[in-house]
């Protein structure tokens, strides 16, 4: 062979090609408004949405309050409900008055203080109140139930102190650790950081690779001595860094602007995020290698990565309360491992055994994506 590329060690060429690809990608990220949009504007939007707009706290929920027989005790309890900052109370005499309201959502629940309440209370038998909620809206339902219990418990304690009588037994005792204010923002914001990294890692990456196919630039660089491995690596590194940068921006805002506590270490935060970006990027590359079309790539990225990160990761919905089959599906959703760990880093501190397991599983899922993507990214057009 007389071709110099094959006679001298081609290590230097390899590094030079890789550096050239990374440089090119960096210029493109900086100059292309759509990557700025996905890597900076969209994350900020999401963060503000979860920081200010969306709240899973039951503040001023409208309920119907039925006092079946008016005694001084029941009136006192009713007054407690009216004074609660969680409820906006509509009074009634009979639960049937609120049936339709509950159905159409004018009230979120019906609280019935039964006729037997005063007698039970006086006799120090555990008094009962009935909470009727709309089971089709489980989130609100469980909040109404929990807060109603809280109001009753507080009332009973106060009453006991006032009358210095023995407090009646309270059925449920709830204590919230690590997020004692129970502010949902504190666990939504760390969770949304996982969503942001999914956007950059999977959506943006699959879009930029598909765009190279659409514009014909992929064909042109494939016909140069560049190898498939260099092509993949040249895509991964810039978006890996961009993903971490996006994450850092979000964390900074979460702590500074929203006052979300950060009790873990920076090291744990970056180790977890870096591990999560491996499956996210792998999935993005796999999608674009399979579709080669921006529209399809974005749809697939949204459906196979973004939505599962939202819905199947425990971010908005408890995994334990999902049907068994769906619980199995969540096993392959990388965000499911990241979100609890991130919430722990923010709200509790470093729990390395938990993080180690999460990192291992995410790397494993990532490795599988990469192997499949690698096999699909040969230097071939068809």
């Amino acid at each position, binding site marked *: *062979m*007389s*071709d110099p*590329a*094959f006679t001298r060690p*081609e290590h230097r*060429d390899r590094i*030079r*090609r890789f*550096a*050239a*690809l990374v*440089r*090119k990608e960096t*210029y*493109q990220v900086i*100059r*292309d408004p759509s990557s700025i949009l996905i890597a900076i504007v969209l994350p900020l939007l999401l963060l503000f949405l979860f920081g200010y707009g969306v709240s899973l706290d039951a503040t001023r929920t409208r309920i119907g309050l039925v006092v079946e027989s008016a005694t001084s005790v029941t009136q006192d309890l009713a007054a407690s409900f009216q004074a609660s900052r969680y409820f906006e109370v509509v009074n009634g005499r009979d639960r049937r008055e609120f049936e339709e309201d509950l159905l159409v959502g004018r009230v979120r629940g019906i609280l019935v203080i039964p006729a037997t309440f005063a007698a039970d209370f006086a006799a120090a038998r555990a008094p009962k109140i009935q909470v009727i909620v709309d089971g089709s809206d489980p989130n609100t339902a469980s909040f109404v139930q929990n807060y109603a219990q809280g109001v009753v418990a507080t009332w009973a304690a106060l009453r006991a102190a006032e009358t210095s009588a023995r407090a009646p037994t309270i059925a449920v005792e709830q204590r919230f650790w690590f997020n004692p204010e129970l502010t949902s923002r504190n666990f939504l914001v760390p969770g949304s950081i996982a969503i942001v990294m999914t956007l950059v890692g999977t959506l943006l990456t699959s879009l930029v690779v598909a765009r190279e196919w659409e*514009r*014909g*630039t992929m*064909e*042109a*660089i*494939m*016909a*140069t*001595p*560049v*190898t498939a491995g260099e092509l993949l690596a040249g895509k991964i590194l810039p978006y890996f860094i961009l993903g971490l940068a996006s994450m850092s921006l979000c964390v900074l805002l979460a702590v500074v602007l929203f006052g979300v506590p950060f009790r873990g270490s920076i090291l744990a935060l970056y180790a977890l995020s870096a591990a999560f970006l491996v499956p996210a990027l792998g999935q993005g590359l796999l999608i674009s290698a399979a579709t080669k079309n921006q529209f399809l790539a974005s749809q697939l990225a949204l459906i196979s990565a973004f939505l599962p990160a939202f819905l199947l990761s425990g971010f908005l919905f408890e995994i334990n309360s999902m049907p068994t089959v769906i619980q199995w599906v969540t096993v392959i959703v990388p965000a499911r491992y990241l979100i609890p760990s991130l919430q722990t880093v923010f709200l509790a501190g470093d729990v390395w055994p938990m993080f180690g397991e999460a990192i291992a599983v995410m790397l494993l899922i990532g490795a599988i994506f990469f192997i499949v993507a690698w096999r699909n990214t040969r*230097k*071939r*057009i*068809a």
Partner: protein
Amino acid sequence: MAGPASPFVQITGVTKTFGAAAPALDHVSGTIEGGHITGLVGPDGAGKTTLIRMMTGLMMPDSGTIDVLGFDTRRDPARIQTAIGYMPQRFGLYEDLSVQENLNLYADLRGLPRAERPATFDELLTFTDLKRFTGRLAGKLSGGMKQKLGLACALLKKPRLLLLDEPGVGVDPISRRDLWKMVKDLTTEGIGVVWSTAYLDEAEACDRVLLLNQGKLLFTGPPSEVTGRVDGRVFKLSGMTGRRRPILAKALDQDGVVDGVMQGASIRLVVEPKVDVAAIAAAVAGADVTSAPAQPRFEDAFVDMLGGGPGGRSKLAEATTALPTDDHKPVIEARGLTKKFGDFTAAQDITFQIPRGQIFGLLGPNGAGKSTTFKMLCGLLKPTGGEGRVAGFDLRRDTAQARNRLGYMAQKFSLYGDLSVAQNLEFFAGVYGLSGARKRERIKLMTEIFDFAPHAALSAKDLPLGLKQRLALACAVMHEPEALFLDEPTSGVDPITRREFWTHINALVEKGVTVLVTTHFMDEAEYCDRISLIYRGRSIALGSPDELKASVATTENPNPTMEDAFIALVQASEADEDAGKAAA
């Protein structure tokens, strides 16, 4: 190492099929030599791009082998890729990167040593005349400049084999000529060049050609050998009185006539061997017509090779009601049409009139402003200034009436790809306001005329290009429009289909239909009664094809082609502009 005796590329029995379609390449064999420009010639869908991609080692044949520079594409694609330069159809440039950044990227990817870079960049930037634009983003370059930059990127590490996929598409004739000169220079250094093209005039200039049609290799050898088959059989009829289109139609139906096209006021005929042209001329056009032998061209031979062009009869026109031709009011009129997009003027003060029964052409390279002008005249774009009229209706005030009088055939035949042939006909009939018995009758007629019945259930997107074009024409003329707007109507289709198309259009014009056509095909301009040359948003010349050609005739070039005329007129207009700037 390939010795000088062995060819640069050896293609042996290559077949490639995509899905259920007919093979894209069917047992193709041939060779490509160093030091030559080899034309890979054929209409769209002939298999040109597939063959080039296989030479780069990015696509593998189903059967057969390709050896490039002594390496098998299956076993050694990496070695091939270090030794070739490849420019794909869209030039392979990163639009967000500047000219210099694109060069740097490809220099790194191709492993051009640092020490050689300043000299190589300087040489290539001088060669392509891009020195002034090194800081400009590639996306902001004109088509011609992009193409030169694409070429520069492919040439960074002097390749032994240069593969260019349709480098002449979307580029103005001046840039095309420049590029050709550059590539020609390279061959003197022994570089082998493959230049794929659908333009048959480009084929004529190649050293050797591989002529492809529908995946089959029709011919391989020097183009003169192709044109040689029609030597002494090509004639030019001139001196006709009266309308020339019916004469062409009649001539095409004569025994012994292989092919015929319009050439300005003359007619070009290809006949079978030993046929008496004078007798045919007299029979179709009277005694005072003169016939003179003409230089055979590649296209004449290609049509001959494909078994001759279609006859001159148009069943479509026969079924069309004749429009009165006695009124002399213009059917299509543009008065000072101007369109600005931000601070960019896409069309500036375009004015012309088209009388009934004439074909008017807007001729110019992509991006010159043809389509903008065209869209303003059919009511798809609102002009910034000036006005357009169709059949007497102002397009701004009476848009609906004006639109009912016109038929529109869009670039790339904008049909609904997922609807079948029958459903497309049905849909467009509805859109143009046909209903009931008349709708059924017109659809039936179109199906008969264009022979759609065997394909009625096929999706439009699965049709061969020629059939797509026929379907688009059928959809545009179903409601018998007075004015027909054709946007690049024959782009990429094979010459036989193109002739069939013009037979219909010529015959419709004889029935009183008025036609506005845009084209970047210089040859197609010859069918027009008058043309306007559009360049950088302005009309730089207006006249009949013969007038425009005559206006640039010189003693060195007494019989300029349409392309010569275009280039001369553009250069004259640029000189004027420069003079104007200097004066100001």
